[in-house]
């Protein structure tokens, strides 16, 4: 059995890794590499879940970790890469907010996350509590990606980062929500991504672009 101190260190390391991957997604313009980084992030999350499961003995987390690895680290990146290749959109050109500014805003959002999540972190004496604000920072980062990027694929990616943040929050704060709910959430997520994929194809067909800023005909 590990000491709680060692457990926390490794957990924090993983958390920071997740955050760094989040920042990397903000930084990279190449969509393919962003998708790959997302895969890495999901993998780190799966590892985190395994690690917590291993430490706390919460058996259902193994299943969850497997699902994360299978769906988020493998299936979804494959799906997104396929879209990118088929539609031939490899880079995010001219996002609304430039890379440098994005990184600054990202840092700011992390600070906000710490400020907001402090009571939650304080409320528990779980060994994981220090990493909780990072999870929420991921949520805000994900939202920020959807706000600032133009390509539909990147927006999907932002949404996925947001989902990862929520997952991380759940794992860190409560060692995962009950399995049935978690499975339901994954199902929703997967179906949601499939639907978004179909929509992206249709939008590309109709509008001959997947830049979502062309979608502004409905006003007032």
């Amino acid at each position: 059995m590990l000491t709680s101190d060692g457990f926390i260190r490794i957990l924090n390391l993983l958390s920071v890794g997740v955050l760094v991957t989040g920042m990397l997604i903000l930084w990279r313009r190449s969509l393919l590499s962003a998708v790959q980084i997302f895969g890495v992030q999901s993998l780190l999350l799966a590892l985190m879940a395994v690690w917590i499961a291993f430490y706390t003995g919460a058996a259902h987390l193994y299943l969850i970790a497997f699902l994360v690895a299978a769906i988020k680290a493998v299936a979804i990146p494959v799906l997104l890469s396929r879209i990118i290749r088929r539609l031939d959109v490899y880079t995010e050109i001219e996002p609304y907010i430039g890379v440098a500014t994005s990184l600054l805003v990202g840092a700011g959002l992390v600070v906000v996350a710490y400020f907001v999540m402090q009571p939650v972190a304080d409320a528990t004496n779980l060994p994981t509590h220090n990493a909780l604000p990072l999870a929420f920072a991921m949520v805000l980062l994900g939202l920020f990606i959807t706000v600032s990027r133009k390509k539909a694929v990147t927006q999907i990616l932002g949404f996925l980062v947001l989902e990862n943040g929520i997952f991380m929050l759940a794992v860190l704060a409560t060692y995962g929500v009950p399995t049935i709910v978690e499975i339901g959430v994954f199902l929703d997520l997967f179906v949601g991504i499939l639907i978004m994929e179909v929509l992206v194809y249709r939008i590309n067909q109709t509008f001959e672009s997947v830049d979502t800023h062309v979608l502004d005909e409905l006003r007032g």
Partner: protein
Amino acid sequence: MFDATLVLIVLVAIHLAGAVAVYLTRQESLLTRQLNGIFGIAGGVMALILALIGLQRNLPGSGSTVLLSLEGVMPFAPLEFTLDRLSSFFLLLIAVVGIPVSLYSIDYMREYVSHPDQPGAHAYNLGLFGVAYQIFILSMILVVLASTTFTFLFLWELMALASYFLVVFEHRHRDTQEAGTLYLIMTHLGFVALFIGFMLLSGPALVGNTTLSFSELRISALALPSTQRDIVFLLMFIGFGSKAGMIPFHVWLPQAHPAAPSPVSALMSGVMIKLGIYGLLRITLDLLGGGPGWWGGLILVVGGASALYGILYALVDHNLKRLLAYSSVENAGIILLASGAALVFWSAGNTALATLALVGALYHILNHGVFKSLLFMGAGAVLQSTHTLDMESLGGLIKRMPWTALFFLVGSVSIAALPPFNGFVGEWIILQSLLLSLALPSQGAHIFLTLGLGALALTGGLVAAAFVKAFGISFLALPRSAQADQATEAPRLMRWAMGINAVLCLLLGLLATLLLPALQGISRAYLGPDQPTVGLAISGLEVRTGTDFGSLSPLLLGILLALLALIALWGLRLAGINELTRRSMTWACGRFTLSPRMEYTATAFANPLKRIFAFLYQPVRALTIETPGASPHFAQDISYRNPVRLWFEEYLYGPVARGIVWLARRASLVQHGSLHLYLTYILSILVILLVLTRG
């Protein structure tokens, strides 16, 4: 004796059954119109019975009886109907106007049946008219009986809705649509003011209470802080005043009245706008139990201003029905003026004068109901016969529709307050009360009351001018258009209906002494016994005001006038004047034919006054001369327009409406179409709320 509750139930049943029956009959048949009229009359008779029961009730205080109380229809608001003297009086008004108008509508509404040569072309659905008509009358009857906040406001809005449907009945005309829209919006704004007023009236004492009935409000109103009472009063004043047509909330009235079918105009003008006065009296006299002197002063000043404004615009308007509508603004102003004076007197402790003024106001309410509906019915008869209301194309109708002309003349004389008709008696009493106001010790009140007196006197003169114009230009001389030339007398039922009202005008004038004690009873029920002296004494056929200040015996006056006329006729006959009479053509400066273009026009009639009051009207002159050839001296078409400015529409409502639309257009940029913007909203609101929660 009838059981009042039973009468009420029968009344409701009659109108509801009427609505259903009229709807079910074939829309274009005579039966539809007959049923509508008959059910309307039957309901009116029931209302009359109810009113008589209420007026006769010899109970102490306000003498109110709960007729019907339905708990739990809405858990937060029971329905309750109470009959007291004030309600009874307004029931009387509804019945007196409603019965002839219903009769009138039977023949009038055939106007909307499609013609055989153009099937369905411009037919309107008379079944739906009947439904709205029955509901309209029913809601008016019930609204004066309502005695909980919910009941009152529900029926008040229902009345507005039903009348809206009636106003937009001729919905194919753009003007009508716009009039309806304006009416509905204005009346709703008034409703909002009323709603807030009623809610503030309830006060903290009734937080947990579930009924908000008037009897509870009466008690809670006493405990309210005086600022809150003032706010309540102002809100109610705006809310009810906008229904009564006081300026600056009158703007809907000159549009809605001409747009509506004539029986509806008659009902709206004769009855509905009076319910605004009813509300105001109910609030100030009953629920709030009086207030500081400035309440009355405010009502008086606004009333006086409405009276002047209304009649000045009636003078320069040449649409017969719009003229009548402006005249309704004027009469509502007179009634408000008198009510305001009553409140001033009351707050000064002089209940004798307060009673006098209030009796005058009430009597004028009834009188105006009778003669204004008569005039609207007359205008309707003209419209039905000539299809125009523009006075500049009327004329000569006295030859073609003599009965209508006679009745219209009676209405005009009554509204101009000439004896022996009813308008005279009401305005005489109001004038008396203002003249007696010197008895008050307060200097401030004198200023108000003197202003009111001046406004009333000036109004009286202008009314006469306006109706000389209305009658003279429309009915006398030669017809100015082919339609007017081919006019025929109104159908029988319409003539009867107008005749009833004309006779009522005369009877209410001659036999005023029979009704005045009842009005005195109503006033005293709220104001208390006369203090310090007698305000209004009625003995036999004579009405006396103050302590021998003035006296009037309408019946004797009438008989005297009739005798004088007879003597004059007899004298002329004795002098053999008739034998010397020689008939010859109207002198036309030796021209061979008289043409309508030689006639005096309404524009010309109004022009001197238009110039005198140019500072108010700010008339716009637009002269366009069309010269098709090269020379400017050969004009083909000259058109001259000289419209007056509508102050409130132009300087108040216009800018406000434009401002709101401008703001709205700016604000609509929120929905700009950008997904990123939308997501930013979510991110922002989330962060803001979270930070606020932490903070």
